């Protein structure tokens, strides 16, 4: 097995480039373009529903969810094929991907917090605003 030495480190070359590697790039390009076109079509659909008045909120949330999942698929293809992370050895993939799991809690906690803040503000909004009155006795002695 042929090996290279870079600054004293011993590493083994990845699979030699063949015509397949170019085919794979073209295939990934087509996948990314098609996903983007689908996303844009869904985006236009959402826009048209807003213009048409009385849009169905649950349908819009569903479409937005689909667009987010499609974007995650795009991210997977870019990282796995274009950045060649899929071709690295498992240990390396894990040190990159496992810390990113923190994002799950990060997103869930913060969006919940934001929503809660909105609800609290709505809950405690002044229903009967109290007028400011000047008191005669000073608060501080």
């Amino acid at each position, binding site marked *: *097995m042929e*090996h*290279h030495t*870079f*600054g004293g*480190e*011993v*590493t*083994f070359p990845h699979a*030699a*480039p063949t015509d397949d*590697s*170019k085919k794979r*790039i073209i295939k990934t*390009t087509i996948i*990314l*373009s098609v996903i*983007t076109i689908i*996303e*844009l079509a*869904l*985006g*236009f659909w959402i*826009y048209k529903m*807003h213009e048409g008045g009385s849009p169905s909120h649950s349908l819009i949330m569903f479409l*937005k969810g689909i*667009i*987010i999942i499609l*974007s995650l698929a*795009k*991210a997977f293809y*870019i*990282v796995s*094929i*274009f*950045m*060649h*992370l899929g071709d*690295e*050895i498992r*240990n*390396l993939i894990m*040190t*990159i991907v496992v*810390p*990113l799991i*923190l*994002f799950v809690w*990060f*997103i869930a906690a*913060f*969006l919940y*917090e*934001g*929503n809660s*803040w*909105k609800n609290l*503000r*709505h809950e405690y909004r002044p229903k009967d605003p109290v007028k400011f009155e000047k008191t005669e006795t000073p608060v501080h002695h």
Partner: protein
Amino acid sequence: MAQAAVNTKWWGGGKSPFNVEYGKLMMWYFLMSDAFTFGAFLISYGTVRMSSASWPDPNHVFNAVPFFSGVHMPLVFVSFMTFVLIVSSVTMVLAVNEGHKGNKQGVIKYLFWTIVFGLIFLGSQAWEWTHLYHEGAWWGHNPFPNADGTVATTNFTNFFFTITGFHGFHVFSGVVINLIALLMTQNGVFERRGHYLMIEKVGLYWHFVDLVWVFVFLFFYLV
């Protein structure tokens, strides 16, 4: 080969346990930390948007296209920018591919096109920022109403300019780095070194810029 026969385990010593050189591994870790930076930006944007009763409709804000002034065309110009960045990512991966083969002219050709598409993206963003600025939008100024017709806070423009600006700064530095890599390739630095691993590291950074744009495009323009 005796050495490989003795050390059959990745962590047995005598070889790189991740099978990549130091610089590439560190580029991956840098990009991971950068992902958290962008993640923090986008999540704070999401948090503030969730806490707002209403928010401006992106289709009524980002609706302008160069040479079609006054025409309402939502999503059109940003689609163009997105495709430019995807294409630049493809030419970058082709440059890396040529580097694997040790084909200097191929690396030069594809790096050149990557830089061209990067500059087109930067120019498009500069146009969009200028257009929005002339409509009265900037940090601390938001001329756009909420989708429900109420007056919006400046959160919308603050987040938009901060996050697309931070991304644009990454694109700019990526173009500069690509340009340096192009000049080094042209001068035969990598040819003398015997490998084009530097093009792979530069490529990782450039793909990351495209990756971030996927999410900026998603959260500012689409949803």
